[in-house]
Structure formats: C-alpha cells, structure tokens
C-alpha cells in the first residue's frame, strides 16, 4: 500500500537555508532516506524549492490564470514529500514520525489511490 508523506513546516521553523544547523541536519535526511530504501519502502521523495518559487494555475472559462505564490496562504508550507510503500497506516505513521522535520513541522499522510489497470 502506497502512502504519500507531505512535509509541512513554517518557513521560519527548523534550520535556516545555508546555516551550519542545516548542514548538521543533512545527515539525518540522508539516513532517513537510506532507511526507507533499505526497508524496501522507498518509492520516491524530493525536497521542494521554497514557497516564493510557487506558481498557481487555474483554468476558468477556458482562460488559464496563473498566480504568483501558493494556492492558499498558510503558516506551514509544503517543503517536500516522500511516497512510501508499507503495509498499513500504522507503518506509515511510524515512518512519518521519523522524518527529521517532524519535531518542528508536520507530516500529512495521504494514502495513494491505486488506479486499476
């Protein structure tokens, strides 16, 4: 069963970009991702560029409208994701709790819909 882990945090939470704290956090992310691979649970996972790089697209009455910025202004923004393949929600929850950002952000777990082929 596949789950998407959506990694949210406030932009001022956690280590700042380019700071020594961020450098110190990197090994945790590496170890976490390697742990997923070793457990056979890794499907995909990438960090995202900061929220000020976001563009939102809507099509209304056939017109494509683009807006600078995210769909909704919220304190916590999406900063990355993993897609993992594990047995059930308890296993997904365990992995979510181990994401290095979990202590200062939040991890939303969304089951990935399986489209029958």
């Amino acid at each position, binding site marked *: 069963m596949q*789950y998407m882990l959506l990694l949210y945090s406030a932009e001022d939470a956690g280590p700042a970009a380019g700071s020594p704290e961020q450098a110190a956090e990197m090994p945790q992310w590496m170890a976490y991702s390697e742990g997923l691979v070793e457990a056979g649970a890794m499907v995909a996972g990438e960090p995202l560029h900061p929220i000020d790089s976001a563009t939102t697209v809507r099509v209304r009455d056939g017109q494509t409208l683009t807006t600078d910025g995210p769909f909704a202004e919220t304190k916590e923004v999406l900063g990355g994701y993993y897609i993992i393949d594990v047995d059930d929600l308890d296993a997904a929850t365990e992995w979510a709790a181990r994401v290095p950002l979990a202590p200062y952000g939040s991890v939303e777990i969304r089951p990935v819909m399986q489209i029958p082929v």
Partner: protein
Amino acid sequence: MSRSLVAQVFAEEWPRVVATLRRDWGDLDLAEDVAADAFAEAARRWGPGDSPDRPGAWLVATARRKAIDRARRDRRFAERLPALADHHLREPAQASGLVDDQLALIFGCCHPSLAREAQVALTLREVAGLSTSQIAHAFLVSEPAMAKRLVRAKAKIRSANVPFAVPPPECLDDRLSAVLAVVYLVFTEGHTSTHEATLVRGDLCDEARWLAGLLSRLLPEHSEVLGLVALLAFTDARRPTRIDGDGALVLLEDQDRSRWDRAAIAQGTEVLARAQALGKLAAYQLQAAIAGAHSTAPSLADTNWHGIVMAYDQLLVLGGDQVVGLNRAIAVGMAFGPAAGLRAVGEVAGDGALDDFHYLHSTKAELFRQLGDVAQASASYDRALDLVTNDVEAAFLAARLGSLAAGGDDPSGR
C-alpha cells in the same frame, strides 16, 4: 419467544460475529452487514425447541454463508473469493482466535487516526451493536448526520488501510488508553449530558459498563481496564438517586443511600481489589478508589475523606488536570474544613485559567457557604449560573442561590 432468545445472545454474540467476519474478509462494512443479516435470520427462524445448541456457531456460519452469497453477487468481493472461500467454510471460530479478533475490532474502531467522535460512534455500532438511529438519538444528532459520520470513518479505514489488529506490546498501553477513553466518554455522556434537560441517559451508562466488562474479559490482567470497570460500577450504583422525581439534581449528601445499587457496589469492590492486586497504580484505579470511598460510606460525614484526599494527591502526581485539583479541594474542605478547601482552590485556580469553568465557581460558592460568607457565596453562584449549560445543574445552582438569599437556609434541610 424466538425474538427473546436472539435478544439474549445478541450482546455476547454480535461483536464475535462482526469481529470474525471482519477478520475473514478484511472489510468492516461487509462484516457489519452480514452480521445484521444473520441476526435477522435468527429472529425469523429460532423458535421454542427449535434453536441451535450453539447459537454463536450458528450465527457465524450463517453470516459466513451470507458473505459468500454476497461475494458471488458483488464483483468487489468476487475477486478475493477463490483464495478465501474454503478457509471460511471450514475453519471453526476458536476461543483464542475469538479473543484476538474481538480485540482487533475494538482497537481498530478506536484507532488514533480516527477522530474521537468517530471512534465512539464506530465502537457503539460495531462492538456494542447499537443501530445508527440509537447512536444518533443518544448523542443528540440527526440520524443522517450520524450515518454520515459512520460512513466517513469506514471510508477512511478502507482507503488509508487503518489496521485492525492487537497492537504490539510496546504500544498496547497507549492504544488501550484511547479505548478506555472512548468507553469512559460513552459513560459520562450517559451520566451527565451536557446539553439536555435529562441528566442521566441510562442506556449509554449500560452500554459503557457492558463495553468495559467485555474488555475486562478480553484483557483480564490489565489493571486500568479493571479500574475502569470498578469506577463505572461505583458511579453507576448511585444512578437511582442522582436526580429526584422532578428531574432535579440531588447532591451526594442528600441522596438516599439505601437506594444505591448494592450489586453494582459489590462488583466495584471486587473488581477494584483485583486491580489493586496487580500492583500498578494508575488513573482509573485511583478514581475508582475515590468513587468506592463514596459509594461504600454510610453517610457524607462518615466518609474516608483523608483517603480521598490522598487518592487525589496521587492522581495529581500522575498528571491529573485542574478539574482533579478542584475535586481535591472539595475533599480537602471535607477533611480539614472549608477554609482549607478554599486555600486548595486558590492553588488550582490562581492563574485564572479556569475562570470560565462553572465548576470552579460552584465549588467556591459551596465552600463560602460552609464558611458562612453569604456575599461571596452568592457572587460565586451567580458566576456559575452565567456559565453552566446543563438545565438540571442550572436549576440546582439557582436553588442554592435562592436559599442563600432567603436567609441562608440550606435547601437540603441541614
């Protein structure tokens, strides 16, 4: 006649049938539907001298047959049929498997990924076997709203693959505390409804005590399960005297103790002793000890108030909140006098966090009244009346306030 036999076995067999079928098929909806079908068929077919020797086995076999029938009609299940069909029809429901299946059902319904109100609704529907309309009525929501709540919860269970399993030992205590919280919430909802004119809705108290009893049979070595069984028994023993003929709240000190339910008190005493023998002090057990001290006391004065204060002290050590602190203050007032009680209130409510809580003000009012400070007592009753939402409690507070204004006569006649 046949209906009454089905009714007799319903409470016992409903969770077993649902749990077994849910394990068979991994689908709560299907399990619930075919369990209901099996009980309906039993109601039609069981007559005097014409009922199965082992009703539980008959119900499981019937539900399994209905599940297979349904799978043959429904493509969603037909896909899984070849792998499962033989196993269904042959495998007997064994006692040890039945315990685990029922625990899996209960832990699944109370899974932490579900909202508390969904956990409560699911537990009452799937484990206790209440109908959607009964649950809706008990929780004062419309039947469509309750149906929607159940449908949404079951959809999440299916799409997110919420596990229905006995949690591993390292998580068991945490997960069990969620289950006990659900049972306790059902009881308190029955015992003190927040928004209805009727203070005690006995059906929910009965269901909660039944659920706690089921848990204690499935997990006989867990002191908190036993603690909850004892707590509910001691508290429920006073149900017959908690409100009077006019629906007004009766204070503990004015209740007719001869009308308390002796059987419930005996059960509480026996189960609490078993919990204490396990040697693990925890919250429900301590609350049961307090409720037991009240329910076994011959009168308010002849109550072990020092013991009650000590139990509250231990609850606070375990992380009890400010409500526990207020209850402790009342006990301190009884053990050491109203002035000491007011000092204890000050320790709890000094930071103003409870200023909007009616119970803070009714507690202070009672202690001021005992001290003879009519002005402070009536000011506190006024504040409590502004904040209270339950009609019965409001009427009680108004009566207390009225008796102060009338010259300090105690409405209880003391």
